[in-house]
């Protein structure tokens, strides 16, 4: 496959940045999107052009590092996959592909397609944890009985890899699907009840502080989420937040 790529280039956080056109040749349809980017970078290096910076780590769809906005969608046109799992067979020979970084005020661009998603880390630090005594007398996790239904729903929420596709896809750059998932994975389990009130209040406060937009329930986040995190988690977070504020 031979492709035309329109890619966002930005030298650093202070640079204005612009879209630049590149031609890439000899791409196999069996390659992943990131492998296609590797080939492009090799071709650019051979021409003496600065390679394109992009985030990647595991390339197995579990680390949440890859973060490209491809042809107007987070992680590209396929469903339930991250960019590293997106295959070039989703495109046709001769296609023009637009590649941009995830856009949000809370996700500033560091370089080219790399954005700073540490806002998610700060939200997690605000309450996305449980406090457990680990000084040698830790209780066996299986000693606390949990219904299959609750365990399944908590696990579904916990599959969020924090890639930020929800923020990138949302017309309001809202982070509520991410925060909803992180709140839900503990709210559904007995171990999460002790700190439930502080957790949701602190995580929502940090989310607002980071400058994310408000959720208007378009559902774009749910569609684009590579892990299929449901809007149900946002509804649960809303209930948790109301309940926490009533309790004080």
């Amino acid at each position, binding site marked *: 496959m031979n492709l035309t790529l329109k890619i966002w280039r930005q030298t650093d956080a202070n640079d204005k940045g612009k879209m630049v056109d590149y031609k890439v040749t000899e791409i196999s349809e069996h390659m992943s999107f990131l492998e296609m980017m590797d080939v492009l970078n090799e071709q650019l290096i051979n021409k003496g052009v600065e390679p394109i910076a992009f985030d990647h780590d595991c390339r197995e769809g579990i680390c949440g590092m890859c973060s490209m906005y491809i042809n107007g969608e987070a992680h590209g046109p396929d469903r339930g996959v991250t960019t590293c799992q997106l295959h070039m067979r989703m495109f046709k020979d001769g296609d023009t592909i*637009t590649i*941009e970084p995830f856009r949000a*005020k809370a996700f500033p661009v560091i370089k080219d397609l790399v954005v700073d998603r540490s806002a998610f880390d700060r939200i997690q630090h605000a309450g996305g944890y449980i406090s457990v005594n680990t000084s040698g007398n830790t209780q066996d996790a299986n000693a606390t009985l949990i219904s299959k239904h609750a365990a399944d729903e908590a696990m579904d929420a916990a599959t969020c890899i924090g890639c930020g596709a929800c923020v990138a896809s949302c*017309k309001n750059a809202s982070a509520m699907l991410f925060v909803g998932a992180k709140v839900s994975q503990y709210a559904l389990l007995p171990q999460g009840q002790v700190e439930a009130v502080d957790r949701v209040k602190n995580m929502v*406060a940090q989310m607002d502080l980071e400058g994310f937009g*408000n959720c208007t329930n*378009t*559902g774009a986040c749910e569609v684009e989420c590579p892990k299929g995190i449901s809007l149900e988690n946002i*509804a649960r977070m*809303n209930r948790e937040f109301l309940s926490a504020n009533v309790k004080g």
Partner: protein
Amino acid sequence: MSGFFKSSIGRKYAMALSAFFLMFFLLQHFAINILSVISPDAFNEASHFMGTFWAVQYVLQPVLIFGVIYHFVMGFILEAKNRSARVKTYAKNNGAANSSWMSRNMIYSGLAILAFLVLHFIDFWIPEINTKFIDGDMTGLLPNGEGFRYYEELAHKFENPLRVGAYVIAFIFLSLHLMHGFSSAFQSAGASSMRKEKLQLFAKVYSIAIPLGFIFIALFHHFNH
């Protein structure tokens, strides 16, 4: 609860609550207006009751006005905040791939409804307030004293095809607004059951049937007078 309504989720709840109230009001407004098609006398009686009963005039009406203003003002505030959350927009964005047109354009359908409300207030509400509270005529009777004035005023308003056209367009926008807004309000209020098929179906029926009913009333009076 002090900071609740300053938070993003608190504002979602407030928008949802005002939406619930407005959707209930819309249903009540429709129930009375459809009487004008079924029975002019019943419409006159209901209109007179609503226009003179103290609880409606001095309790529900101020709450309604507050609800309308709050919904619009908060809508604008949230829209401004949401726009500021993405300073640099995408060169290519395929919103249609993951969301409905209605959900992405609530501000525009809302603005169309706001423009309609201005027309509607000039048409009906301001003359009504003028008659009752400036002129002091609480009788609800025609100038010649022969029966109630409400049905006559309604029929007269819908003689003008431009006004009828504006009403039809406004109600199409209202339908588009409700198609997302109805289920969105339930989702914002934390209702997980909204994802069940029956409630989704009810939301669709409400969003189409009520605006269509208002369009029918406007056209009925236009072509029958």
